[in-house]
């Protein structure tokens, strides 16, 4: 099976053709936004990271920035720095050049302040846009697609309709030779034994137990019961009683195939097939990790309703119930509520999601894209020093 995508010069495959304006440090975020606002056609992503990171935290933030800005949905990237930060445009650009990504850099101190940096940035972004305009979609095998699996604002139906239907779509993509990444480690608490049974080998099984135990330890470190945060007040109002119940519904997104590998947040897998990324329960930060790990399309299930998108990767929203679908119709792409309404089955909605993934990968805009949802954040481990 084929879709229409962009084959980049480094042989990676993109499904969008963005020019990205990206600050490598929070101090350059406003300048990056000014450039982005003055260059229609470019997208920007701002965040609170880039300085004060040490050790494993610094590694994670750098890995995230490199994976995100080097993503094949990005035709070219303009990195914006201040000049005295820990993570400079040059740090990231060096990695991007090695990976074959088209990159330009500007620095506020070097340019001589905000106004001149914005002017220089606009000129470079314009140049990148002109180059990107030459890219053409071509027929590419769906085995080159990696799907990111996300859920947010879950209710009791998420685990009965939208998540298992997405699991079927994941299975279909993997059967075609593609990959799917699921994550949100906090939302695996209580499901270790279920996931471990599906591990490809003893190492993967060990890593599954390790990352989930670490998430439990982290949750306990606050010295309180996490209920009220996990599940959230909205989850509880929707009928979810415990993190175990939420998790058992959450993991159904991952379908039924063998878990091939466990990777760190924003780490790119070596294997194909079903992958677990050790991520966070916070949707926007987790989406960034899925993208940096290589997801070109994200499918995001929701019961309570959430509008979030990402700056560079299309997000397909699947509602777990018809009430939310009708209430937030301008945000929802697919209604899995038909499964309990009697109009559809898990199989029919799973196939509908799979077909939508192919359409969206080939250029169809999602509701989040149409509305301009480009939420972005980086999962920093801290402590910032």
């Amino acid at each position, binding site marked *: 099976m084929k879709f229409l995508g962009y084959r980049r010069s480094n042989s990676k495959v993109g499904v969008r053709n963005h020019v990205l304006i990206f600050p490598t440090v929070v101090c350059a975020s406003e300048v990056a936004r000014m450039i982005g606002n003055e260059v229609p056609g470019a997208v920007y992503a701002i965040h609170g990271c880039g300085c004060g990171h040490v050790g494993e935290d610094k590694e994670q933030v750098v890995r995230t920035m490199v994976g995100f800005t080097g993503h094949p949905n990005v035709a070219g990237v303009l990195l914006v720095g201040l000049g005295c930060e820990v993570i400079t445009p040059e740090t990231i650009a060096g990695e991007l050049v090695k990976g074959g990504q088209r990159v330009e850099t500007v620095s506020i101190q070097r340019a001589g302040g905000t106004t001149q940096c914005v002017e220089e940035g606009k000129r470079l972004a314009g140049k990148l846009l002109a180059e990107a305009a030459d890219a053409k979609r071509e027929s590419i095998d769906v085995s080159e697609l990696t799907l990111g699996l996300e859920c947010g604002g879950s209710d009791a139906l998420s685990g009965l309709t939208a998540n298992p239907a997405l699991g079927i779509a994941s299975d279909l993509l993997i059967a075609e030779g593609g990959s799917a990444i699921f994550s949100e480690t906090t939302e695996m608490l209580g499901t270790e034994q279920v996931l471990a049974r599906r591990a490809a080998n003893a190492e993967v099984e060990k890593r599954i137990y390790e990352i989930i135990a670490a998430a439990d330890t982290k949750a306990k470190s606050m010295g309180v019961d996490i209920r009220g945060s996990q599940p959230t007040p909205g989850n509880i109002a929707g009928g979810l009683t415990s993190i*175990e119940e939420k998790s058992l519904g959450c993991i159904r997104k991952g379908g039924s195939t063998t878990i091939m590998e466990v990777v760190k947040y924003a780490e790119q897998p070596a294997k194909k097939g079903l992958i677990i990324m050790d991520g966070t329960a916070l949707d926007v930060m987790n989406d960034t990790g899925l993208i940096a790990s290589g997801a070109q399309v994200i499918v995001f299930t929701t019961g309570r309703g959430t509008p979030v998108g990402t700056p560079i990767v299309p997000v397909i929203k699947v509602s777990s119930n018809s009430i939310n679908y009708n209430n937030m119709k301008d945000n929802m792409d697919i209604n899995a509520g038909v499964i309990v309404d009697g109009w559809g089955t898990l199989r029919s909605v799973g196939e509908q999601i799979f077909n939508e993934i192919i359409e969206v990968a080939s250029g169809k805009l999602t509701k989040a894209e149409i509305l301009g949802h480009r939420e972005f954040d980086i999962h920093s481990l801290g402590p910032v020093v």
Partner: protein
Amino acid sequence: MQEKAILIDKKDNVATALRQLEKGDSIPVVVEDRSVSVILLQGISFGHKFALTDIQQGDAIIKYGEVIGLATKQIRQGEHVHIHNVESQKGRGDKR
């Protein structure tokens, strides 16, 4: 015709409401070769759970065929099962 409630796994001792259910409603649920009919002791909101059997304090609450928490008090068949009578065993920094 839409079902009133769903039983997911035959090992489960709770079912999930698929619409607003009222006190006194008789709710049949079926999964594989197991069928149960329960008279609700109270109204159950869409997405919320009710007990299929009497559950003793300390017993496991089973959904998806897996443990989702423990009963903090006795729960009668047909009663609402939620945070007022179930506690999680995970992320319990208050219980070290």
